[in-house]
């Protein structure tokens, strides 16, 4: 495993990330008008028309076009049908109109649809080739601005060295979402707020794209908090810059529920083994720092905490264990083998279970029993 910071330097207050707000809605509405006019046309040509409007800077227009694409959807929905149609229709060149018509008709009959439907299906999953299909309601300019902002923040996170998120209200869904994504995070209490210091993808030496995607996936959970502040240090190729996202940022409604099947399955397995399981244990306080177990269970009169770890470094594991020790709690750490490299070896003599896909209850209990017995000698 490569070295990534465990105790990161907090990003200094930097300049505010340029996001869209209510003042941008007039030009966004002009773009929506153009989209409505282009319904049924190829996305590629509609996009060219939108760019010709020159209602804002090209990157801003691009961010709204991207939001519109997301709202209209179609790519994933149509993918299977498009592939099926292409497999039936494409082949030797149809050099005259009759040959072309016959090929399409043949595919239409095989698919049980009309000729026009086949023509539409053929390219319906390709970004520029598929036709514009409007959603039921006219896209709202504010919603588009919020979606574009979400993407702008996610882009910045993908290029981050380190990130500090400060949230007010119940932080647990953010903490669990960070844990479920395997992010390397240090959590601390900061007055009535909770602060997460997270290593960014640029602090890692491998799997940066995967890690960056995981970090970007946190944005909807942050948006669901009562209030938040986000500060990051990132590099877009022109040197490092400190950025911050203001609490007033216009964002889509957040996600406040984290469904983590891995831990749900483990809880069910422990329950079946006759153990009393706490699926939502409270954070443990270790001085100014917090430890956030994913579940806890009773074993031989003791309370054992379980925390699932995704990406890790040796110092990160050591810090984590020290935090549980300081809180006077027993813990078993579960390390995801899929997020390790073949040469990575977890440190010896620590309560660790290695897993891929699911955590074996027997292995977990064996490690827990060792932890209960204490160090040998």
């Amino acid at each position, binding site marked *: 495993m490569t070295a990534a910071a465990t105790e990161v330097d907090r990003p200094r207050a930097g300049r505010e990330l340029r996001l869209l707000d209510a003042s941008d809605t007039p030009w966004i509405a002009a773009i929506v008008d153009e989209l409505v006019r282009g319904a049924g046309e190829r996305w590629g040509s509609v996009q060219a028309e939108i760019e010709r409007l020159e209602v804002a800077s090209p990157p801003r227009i691009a961010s709204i076009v991207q939001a519109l694409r997301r709202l209209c959807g179609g790519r994933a929905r149509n993918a299977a049908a498009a592939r099926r149609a292409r497999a039936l*229709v494409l*082949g030797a060149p149809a050099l005259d109109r009759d040959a072309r018509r016959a090929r399409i008709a043949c595919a239409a009959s095989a698919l049980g649809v009309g000729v026009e439907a086949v023509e539409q299906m053929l390219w319906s999953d390709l970004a520029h*080739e598929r036709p514009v299909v409007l959603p039921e309601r006219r896209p709202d300019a504010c919603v588009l601005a919020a979606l574009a902002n979400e993407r702008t923040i996610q882009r910045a996170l993908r290029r981050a060295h380190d990130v500090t998120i400060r949230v007010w209200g119940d932080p647990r869904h953010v903490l669990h979402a960070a844990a479920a994504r395997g992010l390397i995070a240090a959590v601390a209490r900061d007055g009535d707020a909770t602060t997460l210091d997270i290593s960014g993808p640029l602090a890692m030496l491998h799997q940066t794209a995967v890690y960056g995607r995981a970090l970007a996936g946190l944005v909807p959970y942050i948006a669901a908090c009562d209030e938040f502040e986000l500060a990051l240090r990132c590099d877009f190729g022109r040197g490092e810059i400190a950025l911050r996202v203001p609490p007033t940022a216009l964002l889509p409604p957040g996600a406040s529920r984290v469904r983590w099947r891995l831990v749900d399955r483990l809880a069910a397995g422990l329950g079946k083994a006759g153990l009393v399981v706490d699926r939502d244990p409270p954070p443990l306080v270790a001085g100014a720092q917090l430890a956030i177990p994913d579940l806890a269970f009773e074993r031989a009169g003791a309370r054992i905490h379980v925390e699932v770890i995704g990406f890790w470094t040796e110092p990160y594991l050591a810090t984590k264990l020290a935090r549980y020790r300081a809180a006077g709690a027993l813990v078993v750490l579960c390390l995801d083998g899929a997020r390790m490299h073949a040469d990575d070896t977890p440190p010896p003599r620590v309560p660790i279970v290695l897993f891929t896909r699911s955590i074996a209850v027997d292995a977990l209990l064996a490690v827990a029993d060792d932890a209960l017995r204490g160090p040998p000698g």
Partner: protein
Amino acid sequence: MTWDHELAAWRAPASSHAALRARLADESVRVSDEIRTIALAGAVSPPALRWYQREALDAWTEAGHRGVVALPTGSGKTIVAIAAIAKLGVAALCLVPTRVLLDQWARALAATWPHPIGRLGDGDHAVAPITIATYASAIAWAPRIGDRFGLVVVDEAHHVGGWCPSEVLEMLVAPARLGLTATPPDSLDALARHVGPVVAAMTVGELVGDGLAELDVVTLPIALSPAERKRYRRDRGTFAEAYRAYQRTSRGAGWRAFVTASARSRGGREALAAWRASREVIAYPAGKRAALRELLARHAGERTIVFTADNATAYAIARELLVMPITHEIGRGEREAMLARFRSGEAPVLVSSQVLDEGFDVPDADVAIVVGGTASARRHVQRIGRVLRPRAGKRARVYELVVEASAEIAQVEQRREGLMPAVAP
């Protein structure tokens, strides 16, 4: 060499290990060297070499097992690498740019060595005495496995210093280094420093009819319709006027600087839009449409690849003629199924803009039709290489459709520099 205060020791890049050791031996300094590259268990059995492959291998050997072999696409560069591994009999790391090439190399090596081949990339993390790694995976793995190999082979070596970062090669102790490319880069500094000089080079023209299939290159002039010509003149004129004005005020500034400057003013943006519109006119006008149909009819049943300047044109052709487009948007599974149908002759025409240019295992084709392209000689050589794999009695044909009195004329002249005059029309 730099002094590391933390370690209280001298540090040097792994790649300087062999030179350093030789220097210390010259100075009669006693050293303890813990690096032992592994000898291969069992012999590698390379296929018989053609004359130019043998010449290239000999030149590389004479250069002290360091250097770049430049051979056209389809002439068997991989075989030279396998022969080099067999000759040295040491553990070898082969670096390739793409996952597709990872598979292709694994297949070629597995046919010549009876032991498992290591793979790093595309979800695989297995290291073996002969290992293939994508450039991206090598970045992560080089610090850990850089002391295990005696030979490193860099495929598509023109990417050294760019896509294949120099740091990867610095982290490998391998004293023997072999670079393979069809198109050596203009600046050879990074390649010479980390792999070696170009020790053997053959062009398409030199191997046509011998190591490569016989080749005819035919340029077909395409006339624009009066309406198309009018549009082209108008748009090209708007762009050219703005570009000339920019050149007058910013002498020596490149295209990128022009684009950046143009984005800042309405006039500049209009010039760029006009440039794009002029390219659209010549990308696939009615004349190219008719010529393409005629060529496909003439070569019906022959495996043909149609190259376009952009994806939009590739899709336009696919839509019109119901042939298979190969672009980055077509997923891996579907692409493989399409290539299998192409190989079997069931679907004998593919259309692509860039994906098939390089780093892609395309089955042997007989005809290439260049509907549109760029001025890049490198890209052109790679494209032509797609039809040059030799086969008994094969005569490959390349057609270039070029709009008369347009910017395409200069592009064609420029890109032909990558070929020998013998294959130019």
